[in-house]
């Protein structure tokens, strides 16, 4: 999340600098340069808006975290597999892996939804997606106590309405 915030701040300062530059060039009567600089400002502003939205989603996910783990395998429907390490946060509204966000439960009934959760002795399997694409996530949950597993399952049900299947406990 810090990375997202840093990127957002960078875009903010770049936009500001670029707007100032545009104004300065405009006052020196160089219309073509001012136009180019204006286009650059617009591009930075668009990046800033996109990054601000990303930061909002990341903050929402962080504020509503259910579980934090350190390793995950992400597989997409066409069997591409990706491994992630570092802090991974699972929340009511999605998952945050470093600066990458997987959203669910943010856009009502027609958006991406968390569909199923399975928890075994070592792993947690999350399935989420919309009508077009489904993704599967395999996490090393690191829980050693049964009550911790039950508590996580209860939180998941309370927040997302998905009943986790528990096996091997």
């Amino acid at each position, binding site marked *: 999340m810090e990375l997202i915030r840093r990127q957002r701040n960078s875009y903010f300062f770049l936009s500001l600098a670029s707007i100032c530059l545009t104004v300065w060039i405009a006052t020196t009567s160089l219309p073509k340069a001012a136009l180019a600089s204006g286009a650059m400002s617009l591009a930075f502003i668009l990046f800033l808006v996109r990054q601000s939205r990303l930061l909002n989603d990341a903050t*929402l996910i962080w*504020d509503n975290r259910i579980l934090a783990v350190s390793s995950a395998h992400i597989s997409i429907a066409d069997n591409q597999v990706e491994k992630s390490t570092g802090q991974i946060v699972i929340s009511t509204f999605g998952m945050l892996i470093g600066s990458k966000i997987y959203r669910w*439960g943010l856009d*009502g*009934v027609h958006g991406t939804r968390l569909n199923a959760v399975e928890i075994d002795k070592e792993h947690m399997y999350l399935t989420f997606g919309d009508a077009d694409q489904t993704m599967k996530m395999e996490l090393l949950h690191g829980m050693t106590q049964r009550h911790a597993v039950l508590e996580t399952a209860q939180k998941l*049900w*309370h*927040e*997302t*309405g998905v009943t986790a299947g528990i096996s091997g406990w």
Partner: protein
Amino acid sequence: MDIAKSFNARRLSIAGFSFLFAYILSFPFEGQVLYSLLDLRGIDASTYIMAAIIAHFAGLLTCGLIVRTQAAAKNMLLAGMGFCLAAAVPFFFAPSAAWMAGLIANGYFSGCAVAAWGYFLKAFTPKNERIKSCADVLIYSNLLMIAINVVAVNRSPLFGLGLSMFCLLIGTFFSYIMPLGHQNNQGKVAESKASGGIRNPLLLLCLFVFIITINSGLMYQVINPNFDHLSGLTSWYWAVPYIVALLIIRNLPLKTNRSRILYVGMVMIMGAFISFMLLGRSISDYIIVDTLILGACGIFDLFWWSILGEMLDYSNNSAKVFGLGLSANVLGVLCGGLLGMSVTAIGLPGAQVAVIALTVVCVTLVMLPPLNRQLVLLLKNHTYLAAYDNMSQSQQTDLVRQIKTIEPLTAREQQVLQLILSGKSNRDIADALTISETTVKTHARNIFSKYDVSNRVELISSLLKHQIEK
């Protein structure tokens, strides 16, 4: 028997208030009697007029702090009218400091008496009839005011003052014999836990009233002085279009979309200022300009008076709600007047003054439709919440469970929904569930999506519609 009693009480309250209001309109509140008296003595009117308006504003605003019951409201009504009568006496004698003191007392106590009448409007007029009661008092008081104006202008200002005081005396008599203690059913029903939420609609209404009334203030300062040479005609015709507009709106069917009439009013008021710029200053020109502007004022006034009347149900302190709404009106007149005075004081040609005035009118009128939309949404929300609030806990739970959603709500969403339906704001819900406000908004969006609605008002109204269909 009860209906007959209620009807009589309603008629008495309308009669009492109409005579009081006629006195206010003809004398302390920019009345023709006051203007004629000051003119007779060669005194500059502006200071006196401003002092009376400010005192009236203070009376309207502070009455709710003093008056909290119907009995206290009746006492305030009678005492206020008594003080006004006493404070008007110095005007029969030569000008002195007692004139200014009397006018300030008149402004203040008449404001208190007007605000106190809110209790009787709520108690004696059923909810859906309040627009008629408001129209009645405005029509009767304006008719009486015309009669007093004609006497003051064409016969003698002192005779006009005597006549306006006689009106106040009759109003005091009707108020004295007006009963206490009757409360219509709708009034009882609406006094609920949700009544605290009236603040936002009331503030929005006050803003609405203030913006509308700026135009009236401008009219007093910019248009009226240009037709001073037609005093014979203006003394009686001035309020006639206003009364006709009130009569038309009063008798429209209940189903009529009154918001659309606002647009008619807006066109009329702009037409009035444009006519004022283009036409001359003859009798026919005056009739056109006055008909357009006063007709629009009638439309606007009855619109907000009736909303204010309906709002009385959502508060236990009717004097506070009624006084606050009317004080916004007085503030609008004051600000519009000051604006008009500063525009005319620059010494610009008449056409330029009219253009400036028209610009102000256009700017203020552009703000009306979005304000009206917000007001309607807030009021609907409040009405639905009040109806929901009056159900028992089990009825509320049943109602929420019986309605099918596109997808079932999660446990967290159910918690958020219950708090939404209890009238809490996003901030309050966030505090209650110890989550962020953004999280509440996201849950609310998901809930609306599952019920296939787009906002709180639609959600609550669809829940209640389901209950009614059952």
